[in-house]
């Protein structure tokens, strides 16, 4: 965690044993909690307040208060010139937003889900990502494309895809994947302040989840660095990398593994591009085993890149093959039981970690 965590005392001094893990726990009743939704809303609010050039554009972001209520109250506060309801025309409004960014403004474009960003992907890649390069630095594009990414619950094949791997393969883009409320606030603020195009992949199922937040996180100057992962749980035996909703799954898996004497280190990637290769490799050099967890399709996915990076830089340190847990290699089915099979579950991560840890058992003993 950045900086010093200040805790409010209740008029008595409490003796606390602070865990080595950098997760905030407070026993005073002034512990603050915030949902991811409120974290995003407050970050947008503060950045729009701080910089007149920042504006929000998307479907239902204004009068409807946001399809998922992320932009609640913003139209009322900043008016229709800075919070714009668009028609259902992603290619059109994404292009318009990139053009506005060329000419000095700082657009935040909301896609109702990233599935619809495919309609606008030419502008994200060809008009935004590559412009600074093609113009030798004249045209930086300070734009943020944000919205829910990945699977929700029962929304079927066309509404459930994870786009992290696709966008993260493109040089010129920055791709962020918040998990907690702290991530949401710090990374969105960083994204809006960043001079480059940022793809900000949220998760619908996380919007309602509440996380504790320190006063530092709540401060309007709070910002997280882009390109740095966070070690959510320190461990010795196996590294689990995850992003977005899978971080929660990885943490739960770590609790289960602990009971079996396996101490897992959980890395919340936070940033898919740039990928924090040094944190990942340092962790694998410590634990010698790696599980990558992601929601998206496995082939050419984030886990594939992490595995390649580790094999390239830390091959001698691996005691077991890298394990990939990912979404099933099929379009997302609707039926509840099939959907459960198509999305990684906590037990999948547990099973893979156990495999990685018992790999050093001689085959004769296994037979």
């Amino acid at each position, binding site marked *: 965690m950045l900086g010093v965590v200040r805790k409010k005392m209740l008029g008595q001094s409490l003796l606390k044993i602070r865990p080595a893990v950098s997760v905030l726990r407070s026993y005073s009743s002034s512990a603050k909690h915030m949902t991811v939704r409120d974290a995003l809303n407050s970050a947008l609010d503060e950045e729009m307040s701080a910089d007149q050039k920042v504006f929000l554009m998307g*479907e*239902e972001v204004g*009068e*409807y208060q946001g*399809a998922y209520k992320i932009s609640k109250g913003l139209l009322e506060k900043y008016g229709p010139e800075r919070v714009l*309801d668009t*028609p*259902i*025309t992603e*290619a*059109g409004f994404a292009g318009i937003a990139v053009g506005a960014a060329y000419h000095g403004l700082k657009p935040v474009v909301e896609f109702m889900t990233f*599935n*619809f960003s*495919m*309609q606008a992907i030419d502008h994200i890649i060809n008009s935004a990502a590559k412009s600074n390069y093609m113009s030798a630095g004249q045209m930086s594009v300070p734009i943020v494309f944000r919205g829910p990414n990945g699977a*929700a*619950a*029962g*929304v*079927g*094949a*066309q*509404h459930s895809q994870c786009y992290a791997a696709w966008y993260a393969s493109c040089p010129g883009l920055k791709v962020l994947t918040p998990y907690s409320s702290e991530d949401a606030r710090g990374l969105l603020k960083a994204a809006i302040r960043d001079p480059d195009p940022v793809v900000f992949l949220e998760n619908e199922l996380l919007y309602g989840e509440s996380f504790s937040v320190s006063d530092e996180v709540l401060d309007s100057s709070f910002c997280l660095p882009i390109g740095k992962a966070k070690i959510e749980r320190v461990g010795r035996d196996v590294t689990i990398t995850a992003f977005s909703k899978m971080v929660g799954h990885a943490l739960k898996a770590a609790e289960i593994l602990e009971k079996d004497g396996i101490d897992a280190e959980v890395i919340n990637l936070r940033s898919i591009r740039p990928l924090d290769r040094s944190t990942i490799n340092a962790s694998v050099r410590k634990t010698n085993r790696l599980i990558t967890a992601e929601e998206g399709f*496995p082939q050419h996915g984030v886990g594939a890149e992490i595995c390649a990076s580790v094999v390239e830089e830390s091959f001698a340190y691996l005691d077991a093959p890298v*394990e*990939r*847990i*990912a*979404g*099933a*290699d*099929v*379009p997302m*089915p*609707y*039926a*509840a*039981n*099939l959907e459960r*099979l*198509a*999305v*990684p*579950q906590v037990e*999948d991560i547990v*099973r*893979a970690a156990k*495999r990685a840890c018992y790999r050093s058992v001689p085959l004769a003993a296994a037979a």
Partner: protein
Amino acid sequence: MALSYLRSSSSRSVNLLKPLSSSLPLRRPISTDTTPITVETSVPFTSHQCDAPSCSVETNPKELLTFFRDMALMRRMEIAADSLYKAKLIRGFCHLYDGQEAVAVGMEAAITKKDCIITAYRDHCTFIGRGGTLLEVFAELMGRQAGCSKGKGGSMHFYKKDSNFYGGHGIVGAQVPLGCGLAFAQKYSKDETVTFALYGDGAANQGQLFEALNISALWDLPAILVCENNHYGMGTAEWRAAKSPAYYKRGDYVPGLKVDGMDALAVKQACKFAKEHALKNGPIILEMDTYRYHGHSMSDPGSTYRTRDEISGVRQERDPIERIRKLILSHDLATEKELKDIEKEVRKEVDDTITQAKESPMPEPSELFTNVYAKGLGVESFGADRKEVRATLP
């Protein structure tokens, strides 16, 4: 409204046949009387770049009673789906069509199953119109094996290829170029059939629509673009999304017709006209002035961007089922009680089908890997843990 009709005998015969089991297609003749009746539509057609068809629509008792029954069934089905969603038996997205039934029913009356229909995600009633069964609808909504997509598609992804119903699409506007593609294939094969590509007022602003329309006009494709204008694209009223909400004129060089979409007979007339036009002259746009009683989907109350007075006003003045009921009663084709009995029958049919659908099992886990390809070439596919769950695609 002015009416003129001929009757061969003074006594009317209304045969109420016993309802067939719900696993058979919907075509259930209630009355076999096909004596022609002419009805004047109450709202005239407005046209763009073409001559509007006449307001005098030919129909008959059998057709009117079929309209009534089919729309009552669709209405009941959608209301039942609302309850099932609230009971969490339906998950994800659920976009209901109640209020718009006249479009589905009027269109079918003008065309054959060799003509193609494609629509977006508000597709339950369109599927029924194409001959889909109630069981296939409810089972699919609940993600069961008996569903039209075997539980793998969900509410937005109903298909019935053998009746030329091509879905069922979740991405706003995408179905329009697809529909023009269906028309391309029809012309290519010299089928003398047409495609109806349905979209909403929200989708009407999509660029891909104009791209596909331009090509269709250039190549004289038998494509009929039908804008189901229910005046709201999710929470955005048409005037906030479109500089010109005269959707029937948006085709510019492509002719268009504005139709009272709450009048099944007007819809039938317009679709008949459009089919004849498209086969001779290429694309045409139909704008159906319609209304949805529910919100955009089950997660939208539908009352934050429109007033309850507006909704109840439409229900009072323009409800498509009440329209047909009044027509049937004023022509003495059935008594009030007979119509109420039909509604009771329909309600029971829906309830019985739901019970049946609930008994349909969830798909087998192996279904996760079926139909990824038509020809899988023996490649491997993987579950979330690729070392635990894998399959060969046939």
